[in-house]
């Protein structure tokens, strides 16, 4: 198959926030303790200002594809190497970059820090990735803490070459809340799908999205991440966000999709009895989800009985809702032919080519 589009690729920093040194003002470098000479930055606490990640959960598989390491280079820190390994190596024609180290910026206590880091990253992504290999596309990242700043950032970046989406890192507010309305309005105005992704901060930081209970193990935490996406989809539908923004597309990257079947059925049924609470739904909840929500495939489900896969895909309207993703360079990478084996060629084409094209439109 030609024309495969990968909707979840993660460019990484080699040296943490220091990689953004050239993309922020001197004042902000001071504020964050980035650069300014090793003589002082090594000695002061500010030098350890780090991005919020899941430091408390340890991935025993190592978090990355081991073969994505290139000498001294950490995985996905170099555009040319990444393009060769991902695009040439797997027959993928385009990949959408979702900031590999910025998943957790919604947990920064200071919204200004989050917005500054997001802006610097966007410039870095354009210069170091989108302009290096045209097969890369970018999701511009915004700070979820501050919708006004997020809108300004969307307006600033949306016209750049290769920008196809807005990456909205998760925060402790669910996405139906009016807090996010300006962000969705701007995304719709510029025909940019809004992409969400696990944050890596769930239950670790106070402003992070919350899960039910506190998982003990990484494997437990990782499997449970879809809870947040379920809550966000329910929130979006029940608040009438897709009534307000009829052109909005919401892409759940690495959040699973099989759960959507029960969620659609259950919500469709519940509103029959409970609809007076949210009488602004003019369509069945499942109709909104089918039209507005897209799910990336990785990590692809592996039913015990492969025969169940086809039924499952029909249940979630896969021919409209799924878009392929590899999650390169992470340890749970999906290879396009192997991960989608057992799916008809027609449906595979929709998932890998047609649906992403429809999703990103002319921007692709």
């Amino acid at each position, binding site marked *: 198959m030609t024309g495969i589009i990968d909707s979840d690729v993660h460019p990484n920093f080699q040296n943490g926030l220091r990689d953004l040194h050239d993309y922020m003002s001197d004042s902000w470098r001071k504020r964050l303790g980035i650069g300014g000479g090793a003589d002082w930055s090594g000695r002061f606490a500010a030098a350890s200002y780090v991005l919020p990640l899941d430091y408390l959960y340890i991935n025993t598989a190592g978090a990355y594809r081991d073969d994505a390491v290139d000498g001294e280079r950490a995985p996905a820190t170099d555009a040319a190497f990444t393009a060769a390994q991902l695009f040439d190596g797997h027959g993928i024609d385009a990949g959408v970059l979702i900031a590999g180290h910025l998943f957790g910026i919604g947990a920064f206590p200071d919204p200004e820090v989050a917005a500054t880091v997001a802006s610097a990253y966007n410039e870095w992504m354009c210069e170091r990735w989108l302009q290096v290999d045209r097969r890369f596309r970018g999701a511009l990242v915004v700070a979820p803490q501050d919708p006004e700043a997020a809108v300004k950032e969307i307006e600033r970046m949306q016209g750049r070459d290769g920008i196809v989406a807005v990456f909205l890192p998760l925060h402790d507010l669910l996405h139906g809340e009016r807090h996010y309305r300006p962000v969705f309005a701007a995304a719709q105005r510029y025909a940019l799908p809004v992409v969400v992704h696990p944050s890596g901060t769930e239950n670790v930081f106070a402003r992070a999205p919350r899960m039910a209970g506190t998982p003990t193990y990484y494997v437990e935490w990782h499997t449970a991440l879809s809870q947040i996406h379920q809550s966000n989809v329910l929130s979006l539908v029940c*608040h009438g*966000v897709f009534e307000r923004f009829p052109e909005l597309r919401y892409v759940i990257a690495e959040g699973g999709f099989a759960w959507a079947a029960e969620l659609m059925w259950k919500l469709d049924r519940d509103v*029959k009895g409970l609809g007076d609470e949210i009488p602004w739904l003019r369509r069945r909840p499942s109709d909104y989800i089918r039209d507005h929500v897209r799910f990336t495939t990785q990590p692809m489900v592996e039913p015990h009985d492969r025969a169940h896969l086809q039924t499952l895909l029909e249940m979630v309207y896969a021919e409209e809702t799924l878009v392929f993703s590899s999650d390169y360079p992470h340890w749970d990478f999906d290879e396009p032919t192997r991960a989608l084996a057992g799916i008809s060629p027609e449906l595979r084409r929709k998932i890998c080519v047609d649906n992403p094209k429809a999703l990103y439109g002319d921007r692709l």
Partner: protein
Amino acid sequence: MATVSEPAAEARRLVVGPLAELPPGSVRVVESGGREIAVFNDDGRLHALRNVCPHHGAPLCRGRVAGFMRTAAPYEYDYSGDDPADRVVLCPWHGYKFRLSDGRCTAVGERLAVKTYRVAVEDGDVVVYL
């Protein structure tokens, strides 16, 4: 609420009883050929519906008669109140709402409907036509 049995299953005209015994806010159930029909007096307006919720079979005669929230813009509410066109009976089990006027479920995209019957007052009696 009283149940009135009617022996003639094939009867087209079913006498429910004197209107005086079905005051506003009350409901009576009549049976004909194994079918139960609930006759509601909603503020002087009479409505006859099959007494079975098409969802899970609950007896609609035990449900509340009320208005419902009409479709509105996000975060706005428009309660139909006493508007005769938008009065509903709420299924006593799951709260599905059926319009008294035409038996249709008010849920968006929902095809469920309860059969309705013509009801009249003749010589002081409430009469249902099957």
